[in-house]
């Protein structure tokens, strides 16, 4: 299983701060599609994904136990 963290707009839309999901073996791109298919969220096209607190690329593959975070465009500073 994987812990999936949601932030900002995505957290508001889903109505949860985190999810439990089995994303092992999925690419980053596939994991975005999985969230879009299973939850009421707007497009994740511009959303970055971090695996274990490091930004991941579209074709990186998620491992069992990885923490996956959906990072909408940031606006700190």
């Amino acid at each position: 299983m994987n812990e999936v963290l949601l932030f900002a707009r995505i957290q508001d839309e889903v109505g949860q701060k985190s999810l439990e999901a089995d994303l092992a073996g999925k690419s980053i791109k596939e994991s975005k599609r999985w969230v879009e298919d299973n939850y009421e969220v707007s497009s994740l096209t511009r959303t970055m994904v971090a695996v274990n607190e490091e930004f991941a690329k579209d074709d990186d593959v998620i491992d069992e136990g990885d923490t996956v975070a959906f990072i909408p465009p940031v606006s700190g500073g």
Partner: protein
Amino acid sequence: MDTDLFSLSWEPLDVQPVIDKVVDRNCGAIATFIGTVREMTHGKKTLKLEYEAYEPMAVKTLAQIGDEVEAKWPDTTVAVTHRLGTLGISDIAVIVAVSSPHRKAAYEANEYTMERIKEMVPIWKKEFWEDGTQWIGDQLETTSYDKEEKP
């Protein structure tokens, strides 16, 4: 990179403690940047802001930016504190302090740090206006701020 230099705070920020982290006998220049909550943007009145972060990753990413700065500008030291939670007008959102032997590097490294924070640190700002709220950064192009216009 000393991670004490990079922190998030739910309490109001003070400049002096951030400056104290970078002072050094061989620095001759300290450039600081203080980002504050501005009341008017494009004629629209902000009532308050809320900042949220992916906290452990935000601190780690700030420290990575610190490594980049020390590689680009040798002998500089950077410290960043970012506020989280609810902020009113004129409250401090972020403080960046950079010390360096010479002044040009201090200015450049400070500006670079702010640019990188705005690009990659997982912190989000929600604006509250009289007629609604919005997460900034994630809206459609037509309603987003121009890059130019951000504080």
